[in-house]
């Protein structure tokens, strides 16, 4: 064996030849084959894999849509309808892409909730969590720009309202808006740059997802108990246990997805977006897509424009500081009776904001939004920092295996070959 070649354990000679020069198969085996994973994941741990699949679906369908789409104000709407009518299975590709955006946000919101509930943001996974927040911000930008592309009424007016937000910033605000628009109103240059960026950003997301997964494979996964694995008895290899468990989740996810695409493809959209954009006619109520509604409600809860913008962006940027705002040492809400209730109230506040965001900016919705917004921020800025000191957590289990198997964990006996063969890593 020549010096400098990787010592590969791959048997197949062709794969081995590659692996000795570029050990991707060894890496795949290590990271997705034998990777030691806590044995007690519940189905909430499917959602990372689901988000990954969803991203790939969006990119695949998006590439095909871009082959038929025309980014010009005079043709965009018609080119989308041409995809729906004349492109072979164009309706399928577009409805998958369109509902795929909603599915992506459903999946990612559940993924984020999983992180909040089981304390996955806490040391040593702070950076992993922060990379996730970056992905979410990129997703929001991508989704927003994608929604503009069909150039319907909501595309146009949504773009006008959201880009105008930047004008609230003092001094540089107006210049930012001009830069976003590529002119002095939302027009063809805006559509062109949004299309370009909408094609670019998903690949940036792929890059950050790679970092997110890389960071995960350094710290290892959190788990529903929120305690670290203490030895090989607490973990199982990723394959076959979690590959098959993820497969179950993927099929269920695809069923929900397919039901939307095939039976109610326009349910989550707004009918006004099937009216071609008209700069001279403002829709009665301008509402963003459902996944932006909570943040839209926060924006409108504040009477001051700059204040609203700051709170809206702040409502997500605050997630970056969450690992330090939550002062409790206990990760999983299972053992935090008060924080658990506080988090569930926070989730309710999130849905209340979503509801208010879909309503016109009038009473009582504004007042309700203000209360929900106040709680949204209080959870991070007051409740979590204080509970770390005040709350008395329930006793934590001794170990994962003890919690899963009870007394049997100490009973000895023969080990399953797959689990025993798994190398122990720093957990």
């Amino acid at each position, binding site marked *: 064996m020549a010096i400098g070649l990787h010592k590969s354990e791959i048997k197949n000679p062709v794969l081995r030849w590659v692996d000795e020069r570029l050990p991707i198969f060894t890496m795949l085996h290590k990271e997705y084959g034998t990777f030691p994973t806590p044995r007690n994941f519940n189905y909430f741990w499917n959602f990372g894999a689901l988000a990954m699949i969803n991203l790939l679906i969006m990119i695949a369908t998006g590439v095909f849509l871009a082959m038929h789409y025309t980014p010009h104000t005079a043709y965009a709407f018609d080119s989308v309808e041409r995809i729906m009518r004349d492109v072979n299975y164009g309706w399928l590709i577009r409805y998958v892409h369109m509902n795929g955006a909603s599915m992506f946000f459903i999946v990612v919101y559940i993924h984020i909730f999983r992180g909040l509930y089981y304390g996955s943001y806490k040391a040593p996974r702070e950076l992993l969590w922060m990379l996730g927040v970056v992905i979410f911000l990129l997703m929001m930008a991508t989704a927003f720009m994608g929604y503009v592309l069909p150039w319907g009424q909501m595309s146009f007016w949504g773009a006008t309202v959201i880009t105008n937000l930047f004008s609230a910033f003092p001094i540089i605000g107006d210049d930012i808006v001009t830069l976003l628009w590529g002119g002095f109103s939302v027009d063809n240059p805006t559509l062109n740059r949004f299309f370009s960026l909408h094609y670019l950003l998903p690949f940036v997301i792929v890059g950050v997802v790679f970092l997110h997964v890389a960071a995960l494979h350094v710290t290892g996964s959190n788990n529903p108990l929120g305690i670290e694995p203490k030895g090989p008895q607490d973990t199982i290899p990723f394959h076959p*246990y979690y590959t098959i468990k993820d497969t179950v989740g993927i099929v269920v996810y695809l069923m929900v997805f397919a039901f939307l695409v095939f039976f109610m493809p326009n349910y989550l959209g707004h009918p*006004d977006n099937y009216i071609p954009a008209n700069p001279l006619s403002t829709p009665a109520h301008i509402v963003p897509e459902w996944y932006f509604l909570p943040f839209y409600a926060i924006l409108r809860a504040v009477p001051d424009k700059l204040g609203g913008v700051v709170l809206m962006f702040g409502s997500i940027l605050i997630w970056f500081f969450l690992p330090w705002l939550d002062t409790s040492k206990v990760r999983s809400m299972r053992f935090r009776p008060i924080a658990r209730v506080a988090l569930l109230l926070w989730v309710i506040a999130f849905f209340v904001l979503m*509801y208010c965001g879909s309503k016109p900016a009038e009473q009582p919705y504004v007042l309700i939004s203000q209360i929900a917004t106040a709680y949204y921020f209080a959870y991070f800025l007051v409740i979590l920092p204080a509970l770390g000191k005040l709350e008395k957590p329930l006793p934590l289990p001794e170990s994962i295996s003890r919690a899963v198997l009870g007394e049997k964990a100490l009973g000895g006996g023969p080990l399953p070959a797959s689990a025993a063969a798994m190398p122990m890593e720093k957990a």
Partner: protein
Amino acid sequence: MTRILTALGLLAGLTLASTPALAAGEARPPRDGHFSFAHIFGTFDRAAAQRGFQVYKEVCAACHSMRLLSFRNLLEIGLSEQQVRAIAASVEVTDGPNEEGQMFQRPGRLSDRFPSPFPNEQAARAANNGAYPPDLSVIIKARHNGANYVYSLLTGYQDPPPGVQLGDGMHYNPYFPGGQIAMASVLNEGQVEFADGTPATVDQMARDVVTFLAWAAEPETEQRRRMGIRVMIFLAVAGVLAYGVKRRVWAELKTKPA
């Protein structure tokens, strides 16, 4: 955790269910027309769609374009090729330029789009008291509860209740946001003569034209639903298999200590 999940699912469902109810303005909620295509496995009634096309052509097309449709699309609602060729040929289409550089008129072909009644929006407004009759290609998916809405609108004209002052040239229709609509009541008993002998009541014509418009807005509907059923069956089987395998693979972990 299951309880929390259920609660969250319920909350999400409630929130989403309430979302599409927005932006309706103050209009009366549409009546349910009980259309054949309304439920999730429904199909378009071909005879109704063909009659609806006749209503569109003889009544609506005087003001409303359907610029996204081509004559060839009419084959999908069961008209024969001869019928559609004859319909297309009844229209004069500007083509060109020819070898001398001149534009010329020719009879329409299957590949031609439906002709628009007005050359541009300004002309349409000038002819309609300032109002712009919208293009009807996707009107059913461009309105909340589109099919029932258009059906209710077409059959819902009435005299204004006392106290309502109508604008100049406006008409009262409680299903239209605001109640005042520029379009006059256009459907009158016996206005068209259906070849299949169906009596042309206002309700019948409204139902038929809505069926036609619903097909025009989403011509892929039937194919989409058929494919959807096959996909769901496939996924259901795949799901059962995947879950079975999962149980099997995990069984050893459940019974033996690690």
